[in-house]
């Protein structure tokens, strides 16, 4: 009964579906097996010209050396291609974080890393940006996957950036990054500027806004969390003997 009512809440905190990240035990198998991975990665090369469609998927099958009927490995058809793109781009961020670390002379702070990784993830859409609205349409009809994937992405970015906070800010950080990312990704589909300059500026502004919103949200969380505690301390500092 009570567990049932709690379920909707946990749906929005999805990284819990793949919990306990072990360093000595290998990770559990991902959503795609070996064959599916090889087909999907071949199919991804056709997205710029054929879009997130079953055509790309079928071309991927033959490129990877399977008969065209192998597309029935993917009951979700074109949507599997969207899932693959999201997964592959998210997994690629691990490599990006090393590139970032090697870039600068001085070590980057967590905030700067978050921004840089977010930008690099957005640039992961560069090749397919003229087809991205197709993907967004498919994602809109799979809302739980969209939310889950967005949550995984922001969790990944905060983790790779070295953030270790495990208090209420864990939630506000992920919520605000998800919002910034989703908004910027949408903006990018209409951006015709060179090198996505306008998208970059848009993203910078969102992070600026996010900073003030973040601190407001953070202080709401802290207000709820520490009012009693702080209240006691204020009274004590005023000489009230409690």
């Amino acid at each position, binding site marked *: 009964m009570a567990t049932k009512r709690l379920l909707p809440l946990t749906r929005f905190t999805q990284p819990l579906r793949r919990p306990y990240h072990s*360093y000595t035990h290998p990770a559990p198998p991902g959503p795609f097996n070996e064959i599916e991975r090889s087909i999907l990665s071949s199919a991804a090369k056709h997205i710029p010209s054929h879009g997130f469609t079953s055509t790309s998927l079928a071309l991927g099958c033959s490129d990877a050396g399977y008969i065209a009927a192998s597309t029935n490995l993917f009951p979700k058809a074109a949507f599997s291609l969207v899932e693959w793109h999201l997964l592959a781009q998210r997994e690629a961020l691990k490599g990006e974080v090393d590139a970032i670390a090697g870039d600068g002379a001085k070590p980057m702070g967590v905030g700067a890393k978050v921004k840089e990784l977010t930008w690099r993830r957005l640039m992961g859409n560069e090749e397919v940006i003229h087809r991205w609205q197709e993907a967004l349409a498919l994602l809109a009809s799979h809302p739980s996957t969209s939310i889950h994937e967005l949550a995984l992405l922001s969790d990944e970015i905060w983790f790779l950036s070295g953030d270790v*906070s495990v*208090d209420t800010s864990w939630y506000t950080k992920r919520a605000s990054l998800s919002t910034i990312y989703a908004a910027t990704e949408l903006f990018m589909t209409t951006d015709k500027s060179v090198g996505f300059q306008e998208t970059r500026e848009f993203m910078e502004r969102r992070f600026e806004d996010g900073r003030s919103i973040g601190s407001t949200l953070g202080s709401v969380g802290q207000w*709820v969390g520490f009012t009693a505690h702080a209240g006691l301390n204020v009274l004590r500092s005023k000489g009230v003997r409690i």
Partner: protein
Amino acid sequence: MKLSIGSRSTRASLQTPLYDFLAPSLIITPRTRKHFSTTPRTLSATTHNESSKPPLSQPHRTPKAGPEAATNTAPPSKPLTQAQRDFLTSALRVNQAGELAATLIYTAQTPPIVASHPHLRPLMAHMYEQEAGHFKTFNGLLAKHRIRPTAMYPLWSVAATALGWGTAIMGREAAMACTEAVETEIGGHYNGQVRVLLDMIDSMESKGQEVGEDLRELVDSIRKIRDEELEHLDHAVENDAQKAVPHELLTGVIRAGCRGAIWVSERV
């Protein structure tokens, strides 16, 4: 502190496997213990094996988090099952919530208690320091293993502060009864976790699977923390927790509250 093969076999010969989880971490990792009893204890002299440093802020293992934690990977073993990962996730989440509450209880209790009983200052400080160490350990483990903290974080903060302050103004006995009640629940809770973890390790070993070092370290950490909680329980009883009026009602209510909070934190 490293545990040697020798001490492990000592433990095995001392305990039947059934009660292995009860083995105090003292046997595995000898550590110093300080008694803060306000009444003179003849026994305490024998257990005082303090060296140069006071054991107040014993450094807890603080695991690295973020990408750098991934560098020391051991030879591969089998993936943990979904059930095992679920257990570890909710166990670590609830432990962090509990230690958050513990630090806040002592923070809120200390000023009123120390104001009327100055001799309790070192004891309160000692217990607080240990709780802060526990909290730090679980914070590190949550970040390292990428576990979401409980969504009830703000609520537990308020509840723990209220509980600490409320029992402290009721007097020394009530404050100690609060510690007694909390630590009784927590000690049992940690024992349960150690038992499940040892079962998990046993079944992996019997199937010939490699057991990750993080699991073994976790058992040791929880054992050590469990011992410190039971030490707090002893201190509370020594300081007249059971003279609190009405003792049964007070500890009963607090213990029920702890169980409820544990139940919720394991889930949300």
